[in-house]
């Protein structure tokens, strides 16, 4: 950029980005979920981590997640520009150039992976690199525009952070970390499809096949119930591993009954009923799904604290 942008040209002037525009590329909301679940994965592991190493590890995971968000925005700039929800993102709004997002994403991906490797171990760094690759290449580039099951497979990218946190502490992968992964992986589809049922999206105009648009609301309702049923044994099973405890088990039972009841209610409803009450149940279940994931991970944390305290 040069001062040439000071001279009005008659055309729409290209804006120069603020620092916040670059930060927006990192999808801060997604980052916060990643940081929280990775932190829990790290803290519930049976091996203590030096606080500073733990801080650097979480920072690397957050930067890696942000970098993959920037690469996703670079790749999806064309469809972001066509959808109301995303049209004001930095690239389609013209505040950040696509090349800048690409450069920033690639640089920070390498930076976060290498620093995590130096600070902790090769497995954690490898998992972070694979997560970035999965989100950008497998989900964004390959599946997102190809299949209505995109969110199912793509959800794996959001499920890796607790596994990375666990690998930071233990240097390995175990049944506990795999089940934490599975919990988020199985939770993502019903959570997202509950939202898709009541949000009027313009994915169709942008050429992105979402289940609600390709197969309709009835099939989506079936999918919400099916995935919630599959989610229950995963969530309860985690309670019987070494990181589970009474608090987790009690929480899991309550939250799974609550979520299952919601999914059942969604399945029972017809579109006419949903439209009539402005998707009241779907909105409620979406909220429950947020409490669901947060509650499970907080419960894991409480049990870990109780174990440390010898309770």
């Amino acid at each position, binding site marked *: 950029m040069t*001062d040439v*942008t*000071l001279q009005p040209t008659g055309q729409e002037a290209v804006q*120069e*980005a*603020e*620092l916040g525009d670059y930060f927006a590329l990192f999808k801060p909301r997604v980052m916060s979920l990643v940081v929280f679940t990775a932190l829990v994965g790290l803290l519930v592991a049976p091996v203590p981590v*030096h606080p*500073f*190493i733990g801080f*650097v590890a979480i*920072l690397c995971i957050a930067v890696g997640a942000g970098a993959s968000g920037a690469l996703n925005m670079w790749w999806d700039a064309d469809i972001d520009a066509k959808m109301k929800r995303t049209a004001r993102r930095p690239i389609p709004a013209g505040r950040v150039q696509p090349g800048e997002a690409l450069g920033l994403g690639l640089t920070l991906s390498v930076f976060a992976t290498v*620093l995590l490797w*130096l*600070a902790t171990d090769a497995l954690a760094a490898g998992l972070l690199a694979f997560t970035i690759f999965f989100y950008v290449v497998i989900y964004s580039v390959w599946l997102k525009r190809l299949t209505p099951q995109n969110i199912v497979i793509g959800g794996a990218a959001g499920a890796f952070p607790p596994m990375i946190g666990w690998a930071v502490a233990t240097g390995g992968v175990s049944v506990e970390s795999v089940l934490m992964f599975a919990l988020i992986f199985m939770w993502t589809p019903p959570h997202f499809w509950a939202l898709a049922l009541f949000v009027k999206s313009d994915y169709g105009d942008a050429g992105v096949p979402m289940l609600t648009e390709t197969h309709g609301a009835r099939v989506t309702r079936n999918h919400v119930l099916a995935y919630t049923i599959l989610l229950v044994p995963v969530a309860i099973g985690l309670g019987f591993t070494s990181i589970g405890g009474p608090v987790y088990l009690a929480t899991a039972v309550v939250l799974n009954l609550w979520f299952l009841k919601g999914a059942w209610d969604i399945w029972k409803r017809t579109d006419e009923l949903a439209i009539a009450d402005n998707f009241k149940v779907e909105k409620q279940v979406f909220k429950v799904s947020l409490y669901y994931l947060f509650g499970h991970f907080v419960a894991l944390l409480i049990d870990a604290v109780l174990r440390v305290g010898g309770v």
Partner: protein
Amino acid sequence: MAIHVEHELHGRRRGRNRGLGLLLAGFVAIVFGLTVVKVIALGDAGKFESFDHVARPQLEPQPEAGQ
């Protein structure tokens, strides 16, 4: 009419430059902190000398007397 030397664009650039400066300072602090933690984790800071790629005869095991 007063001449404004500073354009709004310069303010934005200053914000970006300050942000970048803080990030770089944070990076230096992280690398320094990691170095301190890793060296302390060795237990004996003297062991750190073996990593500096310089021959240090004092680190070599001493031959026993009479050999």
